[in-house]
């Protein structure tokens, strides 16, 4: 059997399905429901077995359409930085507020992706976010929580 990344993903999916199945059997059901034809754990149990079946099949069968990914050509650095910026954005958005964090998220993303035109970066962050906030909050009446704007008295 040829081991390639697709097989490794299938193996991981097999292990995940086994864990899912184990957890499905642990679902607590009401005692009167224990022997019912269908209870809260029935469907997940079927899904667990289906996951084991398909990932097992993928593991066993030869893979004539092997996908070869040239990892050297992939841009891991920028992708990881972008994911990290998104995580920081997610961590601060509630505490600091939508306007400031979103604008900083956009500026830092533009920068790390290689942009250096500061004026354009500024226009496509602070004013852009302000207009979008106006569209959501002012026109569409979608609530946006923003402690920072509240603190400086811009938002009620």
């Amino acid at each position, binding site marked *: 059997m040829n081991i390639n*990344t*697709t097989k490794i*993903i*299938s193996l991981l999916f097999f292990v995940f*399905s086994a864990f*899912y199945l184990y957890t499905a059997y642990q*679902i*607590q*059901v*009401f005692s009167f*429901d224990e022997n*019912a*034809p*269908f*209870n*809260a754990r*029935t*469907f*997940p149990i079927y*899904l667990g077995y289906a*996951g084991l079946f*398909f*990932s097992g*099949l*993928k593991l066993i*069968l*030869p893979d*004539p*359409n092997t*996908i070869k*990914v040239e990892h050297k*050509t*992939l*841009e*891991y650095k920028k*992708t990881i930085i*972008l*994911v990290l910026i*998104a*995580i920081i*954005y*997610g961590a601060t*958005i*509630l505490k600091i507020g*939508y306007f400031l964090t*979103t604008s900083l*998220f*956009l500026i830092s*993303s*533009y920068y790390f*992706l290689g*942009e250096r035109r500061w004026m354009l970066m500024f226009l*496509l962050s602070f004013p852009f976010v302000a207009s*979008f906030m106006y569209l*959501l909050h002012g*026109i*569409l009446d*979608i*609530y946006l*929580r923003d402690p920072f704007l509240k603190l400086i008295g811009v938002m009620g």
Partner: protein
Amino acid sequence: MIEGILIGLKTALSFQNILMVMIGCFFGTIIGMLPGLGPMTAIALMIPITYGFDPATGLILMAGVYYGAVFGGSTSSILLNAPGVPGTVATSFDGYPMAQQGKAGKALAIAAWSSFAGGTLAAIYLLFMAPSLSKVSLSFRSPDYFALMILGLTAIAAFSSKGQFIKAMMMVVLGLMLASVGQDSLSDITRFTFNNMNLTDGISFVLVVMATFAMSEALTIILKRNDPTAAAKQVSLTELGSIKINKEERAKMLKTIPRTSVIGFIIGVLPGAGATIASFLAYGMERNLVKDDEKEKFGKGSVHGLSAPETANNAACSGAFVPLLTLGIPGSGTTAVMLGALLGFGIQPGPRLYMTNPEIFWSVIMSMYIGMVILLILNLPLIPYIARILAVPKNYLIPLILFFSITGIYVMSFNNFDIYLMIGIAVVATFMRLYDFPMPPLILAFVLGGLMEENLRRSLLISNGSWEFLWDRPLTAAILAVTIIIVGWQIFKTFKKN
């Protein structure tokens, strides 16, 4: 029905809804032109905005985005041989050679008129078919629905990724597993939450769509160093030439459009098939039907060859609404996203939709006509200008997609956990995309998961735990037989290849 049509017209022709169709078509065209970003991403990005509207307006906006994206995909197929969406790959076979012959404007006009005619004819078929189908589907019972969902999931797995049926089925199972997280709908017992309160209500549908499409596509573009806007930069430089269609070309189109609209619509109605298969099938069928001298022009700029896939893919888009509106079961990934959005509005599409919410049912159908007209009169002359808007560098495009995705989740939950979960799912999805694991089956399964469990529960309780319900009724047995044929055929193909 006349009353329904009038209700639909009244709703669809309101200023707000016409504006929404225009915005939807325009935005969809822009996204559709970008290779790699399809209608599902476009619709996903629109979901948070639709929550500010009533359901009819929200659905009209999403339908506009859908048609616009397919139309935009045709434009990049014709001008650059770089299809924006899979449904327009066949368009490039004759559209691109025509553009190379200096007839890009004509090719765009043929594509636009064919799309318009295909979409309009299909909307007429839908107009007459949907109410009758709704009545028929009232006789559907839980086992039939369960079997139909199995068929839909199997079909989308079979068609969504060529030669990768098992991978697609793994994604179906993963989608169903994700849908099972949270409280059980009947007993309220929590499942797979690991005592995390944030998971008690389950994983949000918008979160999964944003993560697996919008965010993951943005990360894939960066990871693979693709530049979707590079194609658009070339479009603005292209000399389009005249957009006039002569009498002979019109006569050819008039022969092609009626027959390919029918095939496109039928394929669109079938679960899982969609615009891609419809366009290829229509192209192949048309090649067999035309005279020998015309046959030789295929692949070299044939009017029939361009008109056929364009008519069929738009007809299929309208056809895909049939199972969604009449059965409440989406036939494609895109309509699955729409179903999820409708459920978010608290509306359950299905046979009773046109009785309980006629304004939604009919206004969506009516807005299809309006959408087609807008695409024709607004987008065709505007293509060079839209292309200029698209020349936004990827350094700006990607952060903006991420911004829309995260905002979508933020305005829905105001919860950090959901943002982390979305980023986590997006990273996994990006990695899986590299190895050709298709995402549409996951979305369809995620949307259908709850309904599927509900129908299986009812079926098993009625039959006292026996699986005989699968063949007790002829309709259930017939649906199941089709599913078995699809699975059998896929397994046969896999073994034959091996």
